């Protein structure tokens, strides 16, 4: 199946980069700049920003993946490799884990971390674009993309690309920031995101702008129901999502028919 056969190819010449409208071709470069800047302290900042809760969100995502020994897993935007390390243990020596990221800096940090953890042998690192995955059709058992989809320029195209490479019956799990379900929580979350988060970025990583972008990009990301529709439009079936921490984060699951 070709990506160009789908109906949802976007025509607009601009896209959002946080709250800014930028030419579509520039977004990838701008996102790369953000992650080049935060790569070395990415895990530390995640722990600080989420008070460690991101580990629980990922743990539940791992449970939903229901991976088994011998399977092939693709972790897109896998960054510093925390999910890949856990998948590596679950699929065992007969399985394969592909840690993919468009960003060279993140991938380097991830590869080094995995080697330091002793996770090797069944892990491959691939620098690639989620919108045009360089894998054969029907070749992957499970794809995860954790906190990565919102940085992709054309999300529909990326979802179609994921659907193409998944085996029939294979599953996609999208873990991403989403829309809080409680208005009070939303207000507190806004205050935290736009005031405290950039300040933390400035203090810990000396990079206020990148963390402001992270907060803005979360608000521009599709909410739970919209992302669910996008997955269905991309061809996934039995799509569902689980809200976590009051909807601040949601994990969407879809199965390739």
């Amino acid at each position, binding site marked *: 199946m070709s990506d160009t056969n789908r109906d949802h190819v976007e025509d607009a010449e601009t896209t959002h980069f946080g709250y800014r409208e930028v030419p579509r071709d520039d977004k990838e470069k701008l996102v790369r700049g953000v992650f080049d800047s935060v790569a070395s302290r990415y895990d530390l900042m995640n722990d600080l920003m989420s008070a460690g*809760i991101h*580990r*629980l*969100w990922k*743990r*539940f995502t791992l*449970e*939903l993946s*229901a991976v088994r020994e011998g399977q092939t897993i693709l972790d897109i935007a896998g960054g510093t490799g925390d999910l890949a390390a856990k998948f590596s243990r679950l699929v065992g020596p007969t399985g394969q884990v592909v840690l993919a990221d468009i960003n060279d800096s993140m991938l380097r940090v991830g590869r080094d971390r995995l080697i330091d953890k002793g996770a090797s042998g069944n892990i491959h690192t691939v620098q690639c674009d989620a919108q045009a995955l360089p894998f054969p059709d029907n070749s992957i058992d499970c794809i995860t993309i954790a906190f990565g989809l919102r940085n992709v320029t054309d999300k529909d195209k990326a979802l179609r690309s994921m659907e193409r490479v998944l085996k029939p019956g294979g599953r996609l799990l999208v873990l991403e920031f989403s829309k809080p379900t409680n208005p009070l929580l939303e207000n507190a979350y806004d205050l935290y995101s736009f005031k405290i988060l950039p300040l933390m970025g400035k203090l810990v990583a000396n990079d206020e702008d990148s963390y402001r972008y992270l907060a803005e990009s979360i608000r521009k990301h599709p909410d*739970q129901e919209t992302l669910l529709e996008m997955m269905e439009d991309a061809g996934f079936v039995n799509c*569902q*999502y*689980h*809200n*976590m*921490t*009051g909807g601040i*984060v949601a*994990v969407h699951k879809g199965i390739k028919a």
Partner: protein
Amino acid sequence: MTQGHDPAVITAALAAIETSINKGLSLAPIAQRELAELEGTVIGIQCTAPALAITIIIEPSGELRLAHYSERKADTQVRGTLEDFAALAVSEDPAATLINSNLELIGNTAPLIALQQILSTMDLDWEAPLVDALGDVVGHQLASLLRALFQWGKASGSSLRRQLSEFILEEGRLTPPAAELDAFYSEIEQLGLRVDRLQGRIQKLAKRLGAIKP
């Protein structure tokens, strides 16, 4: 959207209790080795009210993995309401409570018994990590559920296996005692021998009758 508890909260609780158990196991190498023999065993605990599912998976290392969501088929499944689990926890006769209550035991009970025996020998604090993660009310409820399943054998000083077998034999009269079974098998054996002898006599008589006939 799927309803129910916030998965992050339950995951936090299970991660806390998993850490607590595995820390205890790391200090009890014999228990860990015994658990490693049950590698790959999956035990499902399903609380129907309030709705909560926990899956316990025994890792090759002998450590336990607790999951809120699992698609693996459980070797043993225990199902009931929190009230049922709580009744088991405070019961003076847990085996009888287990048999008579609405708790359902499905599948192979041996791994559950083995796990219960191993965990009941460990001084695990179920309450603290769960209350820390979930707060007093829910944390205490979940701790009660886990304590009901894995700790009550310790207080009575006897194993689930013995209590269960005693109950099945003496109280429930669900299976006959071994002595009764032995006597029954012996009688069957005697009956078989007598039938063989009778058959031999019949053949002998038939031969004689054949010889008499002209």
